[in-house]
């Protein structure tokens, strides 16, 4: 048992933290948020060069990492800096699917930073259930509607899930298709997201795609990529929570009222200490989820469910308390915490929320 980062991961962490604290200021981010694209192609390329994407893939896949701890290191740093570029969806989630399906060419492009991807899987009535697919495909022709598809507008290729057999809730019979940008029959209603970046409602009307992996076997690819993405989401949220607590600590000791730093008032001091305790809990939850990503399915899933549930609870506490202890200033859009708090809260709406993972944890516990 050992809790030290390897030298390589430590280096990656240091490099990222330095780069992002230099380049990814609140001002830079606010400009990106205000832009039509909701992301910066330049930042994407620079981070890809620094190895952010390569770290998410194994050597076999053309990367230099790919383990749970690699993912955690990368996304904790992206979360700390509040990076809005869609590495989680575009690179990790979609990249994992393609890598596991053996699509070496596209994975190489992803790692090089030259390919934008989107996963069009969730639907208006599927909520957080991975197995509910009503979109259908006959042969290569897809029809259906996909909900809140991250990075849809920018994607060169969209991975679309469709049911080729079975019932709405079956795991079997889901097939993944690659749909090229500009494919006929695709319409999008795009919008910005609370947490930055963009997504779209995607309607597929007789759209042609090419099968990824085996027909009817898409669920396994989705599940495995989803596990890695959930770890990444937890790590990203942990990073954002670090920023929120650091901003709050700083504020409490800078801001004075009635002649004293407000952090010396006992009520706030005690609440701050509760946040710090939950930060330790959150750190441990992410460590476990990352460390067991390569374990057997039950161990992996127990720890991922536990982590996402705990992050949901601790995240809510941290973002609400950080805002409350700041007071008015934290309510303004231009202050760093505003974006960070939205990131933390919106993370609860991705890959299953607090209750969803609690239920899954209970079910696995009883099994």
């Amino acid at each position, binding site marked *: 048992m050992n809790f030290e980062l390897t030298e390589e991961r430590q280096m990656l962490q240091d490099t990222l933290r330095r780069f992002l604290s230099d380049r990814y200021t609140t001002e830079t981010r606010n400009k990106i948020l205000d832009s039509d694209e909701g992301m910066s192609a330049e930042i994407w390329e620079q981070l890809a060069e620094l190895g952010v994407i390569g770290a998410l893939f194994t050597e076999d896949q053309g990367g230099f990492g790919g383990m749970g701890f690699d993912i955690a290191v990368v996304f904790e740093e992206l979360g700390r800096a509040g990076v809005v570029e869609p590495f989680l969806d575009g690179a990790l989630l979609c990249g994992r699917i393609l890598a596991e399906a053996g699509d070496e060419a596209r994975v190489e492009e992803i790692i090089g930073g030259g390919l934008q991807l989107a996963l069009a899987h969730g639907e208006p009535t599927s909520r957080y259930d991975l197995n509910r697919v009503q979109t259908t495909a006959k042969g290569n022709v897809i029809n259906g509607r996909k909900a809140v598809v991250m990075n849809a507008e920018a994607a060169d290729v969209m991975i679309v899930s469709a049911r080729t057999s079975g019932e709405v809730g079956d795991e079997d019979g889901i097939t993944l298709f690659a749909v090229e940008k500009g494919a006929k029959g695709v319409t999008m209603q795009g919008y910005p997201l609370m947490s930055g970046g963009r997504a779209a409602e995607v309607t597929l009307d007789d759209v042609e795609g090419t099968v990824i992996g085996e027909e009817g076997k898409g669920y396994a690819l989705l599940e495995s990529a989803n596990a890695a993405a959930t770890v990444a989401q937890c790590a990203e949220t942990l990073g954002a929570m670090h920023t929120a607590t650091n901003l709050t600590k700083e504020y409490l000791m800078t801001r004075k009222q009635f002649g004293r730093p407000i952090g010396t008032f006992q009520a706030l001091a005690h609440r701050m200490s509760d946040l710090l305790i939950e930060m330790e809990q959150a750190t441990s939850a992410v460590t476990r989820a990352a460390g067991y990503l390569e374990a057997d399915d039950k161990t992996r899933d127990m720890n991922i469910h536990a982590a996402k549930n705990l992050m949901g609870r601790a995240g809510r506490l941290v973002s609400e308390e950080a805002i409350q202890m700041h007071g008015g200033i934290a309510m303004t859009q231009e202050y760093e915490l505003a974006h960070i708090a939205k990131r933390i809260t*919106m993370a609860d709406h991705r890959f299953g929320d607090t209750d969803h993972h609690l239920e899954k944890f209970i079910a696995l516990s009883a099994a």
Partner: protein
Amino acid sequence: MDLNYTDEELAFRDEVRAFFDEKLDSDLANKVRLGTGLSKDDMEGWHATLNAQGWLVPNWPAEFGGTEWDAVQRHIFDEESARYHAPRTVPFGFSMLAPVLHKFGSKEQNDYWLPRMLDGTDWWCQGYSEPGAGSDLASLKTKAVRDGDHYVVNGQKTWTTLGQHANMIFCLVRTDSDVKQQEGISFLLIDMDTPGVEVRPIILLDGTHEVNEVWFTDVKVPVENLVGEENKGWTYAKYLLTHERTNIAGVGYSQAGIATVKRIAKSEMAGGKPLMQNPHFAARVAQVEIDLMAMATTNLRIISRAADGAAPGIEASMLKVKGTIIRQEINDLARRAVGVYAMPFASEMVEGSNEPLPDPHDAGPLAAHYFNNRKLSIFGGSNEIQRGIIAKVSMGG
């Protein structure tokens, strides 16, 4: 004790309902329901509707247009108002400045300003908070220096709600810097069209423009716009803060909010069943509902005592704290309920555009409301301030 409405109270409720049925425009109610932001015209129109009915300023003395409703009637009106998704009246003139004028203003001031409030000539906003002062209100720095028959005002106010619509602002200003903080403050009425007044928007974290900074540079204010005596403003300010706290618990809003959450959760599917049938979600809803039932009764217990003359100080603080906790919890439930559809962010929609979000529940920008309503426990005397008051008064410390 009797928890049921009397026949008279039921008849009054019918009257209120008939009014809303007849006079509340459904488009306007829908904007309120979705929380998509009201225009200045929307708000002024609703004020005029209420004024025509004689219900715009229930709490004013009858001579100036008050309704002389008792506590239960006011509660019924508030509750129905929320249930019908009627707009809330803008409180700065009607509920904040007016009581100060009634109590401390001159006859001329009352006769001049009150009718203008009622007929919509003036839109008032509030100039209390200053940057860096936070809860320490008395530390304000905006200065007014007497110069002949004018004061000359310099300084800055902040968190001024709806200042962008206002033509008048009531302000606390420092008129004497050589005495104890509280003793050098005066209460001024300032025309915002005077040269040197500048309003700058503050955009909140949900993208809305609700609050503003107001800057004063050599602004000339006629001395007849001083309320009461010079350097006694702190007394009037405290009166304003403690006197008028109608509907502080927000019971009606919370009831409407829970109804929305339940409506969503009956159509939102989770694991193949309506979310409302999920025991964990149902438990969250039930806990808040139970707390809200109790708070509604607490509210009635307290306001019915207030009608008998008892002071509502510490009870108002309790209702504020619990009321905001419950409202914020309901906002949290709402964002949970919609699942992935909490994520889209259309500040245009929040601000009144007609571009619909892709939300399948027609429930408005719920995540934006969740963030926006974090303000409830911060502005208007933070919950920490309220807790301090409760502890101090109840423990006699």
